[in-house]
């Protein structure tokens, strides 16, 4: 088979799989071979708007994603950034959940290619929510700390009973009997990091003496801005809870506990 016949085959095959089916006034269903992971094809409709033609997914893409994941998570944080950038790269608008690309200069084919690429990139977001065994990170951290810190010096889910009887600003692990108790936060994700940031800022406002440590499950996976806010208010951080950092945490605890023994005790 020569190059020109291969090219001819590409053209024939690709074109043959694209079909325009009239449905209603000034509305056509664009049938393509492009589909979601479950075999359902992308919904693409060609519609006339007041000032020209558009291709729209008729809000199907995000609805379809909601079968597999909590779509609220694509409205903030890392996933929102990825979705927004995928759409803007291909000049696709998000109209309250409906993805739309205007057809400019009657370039219908270009608009379709761009639209399909954008839809593919948006649906790839579901790879970030793959099924996995639920994380044991917090449980592992708790077991580790209990093995290193004497029981009478370790408080779990601590709150300042005087200033915060409702327990709005808690500390995962508080190591006491020191002038400046050590507050340790386990940080498995973005929500927890935001809560820890708010708690530490509140303690700062109260003038509550403490030293603090944040242990991430995976710092690299977190969005930059909230991460920057957290690192501004927390004393030290460990980027993950793998073997090297477990050893670092163990050494740090040894130092803190020895330091505490020499100080005037405070509960």
């Amino acid at each position: 088979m020569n190059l020109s016949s291969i090219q001819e085959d590409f053209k024939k095959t690709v074109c043959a799989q694209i079909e325009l089916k009239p449905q209603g006034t000034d509305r056509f269903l664009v049938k393509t071979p492009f589909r979601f992971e479950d075999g359902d094809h992308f919904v693409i409709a060609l519609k006339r708007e007041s000032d020209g033609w558009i291709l729209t997914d008729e809000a199907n893409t995000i609805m379809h994603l909601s079968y597999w994941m909590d779509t609220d998570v694509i409205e903030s944080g890392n996933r929102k950034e990825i979705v927004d950038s995928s759409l803007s790269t291909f000049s696709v608008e998000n109209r309250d959940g409906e993805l739309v690309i205007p057809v400019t200069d009657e370039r219908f084919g270009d608009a379709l290619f761009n639209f399909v690429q954008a839809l593919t990139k948006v649906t790839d977001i579901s790879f970030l929510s793959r099924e996995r065994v639920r994380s044991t990170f917090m449980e592992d951290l708790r077991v580790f700390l209990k093995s290193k810190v004497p029981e009478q010096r370790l408080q779990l889910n601590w709150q300042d009973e005087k200033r915060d009887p409702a327990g709005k600003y808690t500390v995962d692990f508080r190591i006491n009997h020191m002038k400046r108790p050590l507050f340790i936060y386990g940080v498995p994700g973005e929500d927890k990091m935001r809560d820890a940031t708010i708690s530490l800022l509140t303690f700062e406002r109260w003038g509550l003496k403490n030293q603090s440590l944040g242990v991430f499950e995976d710092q690299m996976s977190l969005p930059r801005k909230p991460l920057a806010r957290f690192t501004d208010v927390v004393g030290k951080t460990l980027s993950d809870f793998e073997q090297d950092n477990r050893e670092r945490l163990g050494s740090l605890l040894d130092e803190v506990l020895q330091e505490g023994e020499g100080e005037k005790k405070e509960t």
Partner: protein
Amino acid sequence: MLIPLSDEEIDALIRERKTTPRALFPLRLVEHNKHRRRDCEVKSASGNEFVIAIRQSVIDGLNFSVILMHRRPGFNTLFRLRRYNGMHGEHTNEIEGNKLDDFHVHTATERYQKLGAKEDSFAEATSRHWNLDSAIRCMLEDCGFDSAPPSPQIPFSFPGQTP
């Protein structure tokens, strides 16, 4: 790699006796991102946990899904056992190599899990349901739920409408 559920395990979960959630009658859907939605939790006598998820496009009422999902102990996502879809466009069964363009029902299978695809990638065309109401009824009938009210007595309502 996660251990796939076998076809026998999937079938047992689908057929297991379940109580029809009261939240379906009347069904109140919440609108967001141009689709209406409702999730209902279901717990069977054996302690298995399920979720019924209902979705319907605001733009195209025939584009809907009624999904029965199982909450696998220890996992972070839900396993889709059955999905009753509207007529949203085409569906292709990758393994069987056929294409549908009709109302259809997705079923989880062992073979698609082993392929690395979504568990409910297999679908068959149906004439048993033709709108959201009948799709819900088919799901209740097929998936071990106790009896649903007969069709005319199901007062579905959407935001802004009286049930």
